[in-house]
């Protein structure tokens, strides 16, 4: 059995993502109080925690949608360079941030598909216009991805004409089209009607089985237990517990985690 806690940067296995001593303050409120985390190639890490524990903020710091107050983030071994300004630290290079964002695709809670584009146009947008790959190649690939998420029949539809579950699957196809090193999921099922959650989780499970590197913020504890290599439990801006699902769900492993799980069920 793999013990993924050994996956800290040791020189051999270079992590796809490595976060070290990440802190984030909003005004006087410190939301993240020093988070360190690394994800190796093919690892699925789920971040659990109650509302306000900082899990979404942490994920958004990875691709600089939220600028950390301190700490370092590296993707594919490339550290995002920061510089000090009067407002605190800021990314030093917009170009580098854009490049890194292109490698860390994000799936949002509220889907955020571009409303004026069809599903297919949404999927090919970043490959064609950000990564400057040939349009025909991108279309062919987008059609494969849409088939994979079960939306071939909807490629000419606009987001407004899709159900929430379909929109989120389209958003996953859009993220995959970037050929990212890591997929970031920010509560991907929290805005869905209960009966639509399953179809999205099914797609995510397939991605996990393919060996994609994924960082998932979710409230779906059963799903986390089933697909994760590792669960990270955030509480009050700190990593309260971390380990394989078997370890964390073992009786008496962590009292706060047990309480969180029993509250959520």
């Amino acid at each position, binding site marked *: 059995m793999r013990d993924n806690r050994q996956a800290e940067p040791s020189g051999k296995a270079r992590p796809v993502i490595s976060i070290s001593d990440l802190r984030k303050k909003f005004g006087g409120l410190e939301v993240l109080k020093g988070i360190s985390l690394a994800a190796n190639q093919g690892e699925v890490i789920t971040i659990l925690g109650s509302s306000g524990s900082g899990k979404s903020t942490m994920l958004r710091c990875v691709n600089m949608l939220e600028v950390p107050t301190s700490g370092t983030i590296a993707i594919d071994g490339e550290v995002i360079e920061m510089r000090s300004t009067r407002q605190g630290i800021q990314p030093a290079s917009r170009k580098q941030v854009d490049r890194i*964002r*292109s490698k860390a695709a994000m799936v*949002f809670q509220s889907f955020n598909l571009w409303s004026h584009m069809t599903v297919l146009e949404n999927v090919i947008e970043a490959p064609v216009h950000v990564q400057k790959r040939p349009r025909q190649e991108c279309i062919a690939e987008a059609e494969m991805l849409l088939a994979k998420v079960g939306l071939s029949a909807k490629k000419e539809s606009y987001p407004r004409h899709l159900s929430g579950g379909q929109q989120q699957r389209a958003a996953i196809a859009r993220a995959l089209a970037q050929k990212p090193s890591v997929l970031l999921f920010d509560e991907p099922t929290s805005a869905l009607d209960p009966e639509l959650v399953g179809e999205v989780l099914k797609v995510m499970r397939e991605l996990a089985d393919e060996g994609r590197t994924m960082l998932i913020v979710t409230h779906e504890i059963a799903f986390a237990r089933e697909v994760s290599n590792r669960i990270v439990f955030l509480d009050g801006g700190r990593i309260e517990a971390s380990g394989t699902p078997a370890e964390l769900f073992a009786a008496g492993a962590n009292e706060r985690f047990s309480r969180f799980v029993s509250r959520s069920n």
Partner: protein
Amino acid sequence: MIDFAFLAEAFRTLVPGLPLTFQLASLSLALGAVLSVLFGVFATIGGTVVSRVVAFYVFCIRGTPLLVQIFIVYYGMGQFRPFLQDWGVWLIFREPFWCAIIALTVNTAAYGSEIVRGGLKSVPAGQIEAAKACGMSGMLLYRRIILPIAFRQALPGYSNEIVLMIKATSLASIITMMEVTGLAAKLISETFRAFEVFIVAGGIYLVINFLIAQAIGRIEYWLSPHLRDMPTAEPNNA
């Protein structure tokens, strides 16, 4: 009772004013649209100083009559002739046509920038964030995501501005421009039949604006398949 022969004559007299009406409207709208987008974007992202300057400009232009603005440009600027000559722009301020264009452009840019600003504000933050998250920034983000969405939001409001501008060109007649209204005033001074002549002039503006509303309606329809209800069946081939 109704003198159709005279109405027809009035129509024939006023139609030659149409090209000038169209020139005034199209040129000032084209220049004004460019400025509207610039000012609208500046007001949205330009920081405190720039957005306040734009806000002050909009405040002044919206709060004063267009006729007064035309007078300031046409009559008022003449006082500064030596300066304007030094700067080499007197050629422009000497011509009533260009004075009208300047006043109309400055005016529509103020209203237009507010429409553009509203359009930009209505772009959902989540969609901008999704674009950033896939590596877009700067001009690319504006060109591909923000402006297309903002444009669609702003179009209905802007069509109203286009109609207002068509009508506003009639004020250029006060500074000797012989567009439709200018020709109408001239005809009235020759015939003293104000009612018929202005009815015909009004009818001409009505037809122009009807056609413009139709055209913009089509553009709106064409640009907004994403807002329509889903097509329930295949397009009928019958």
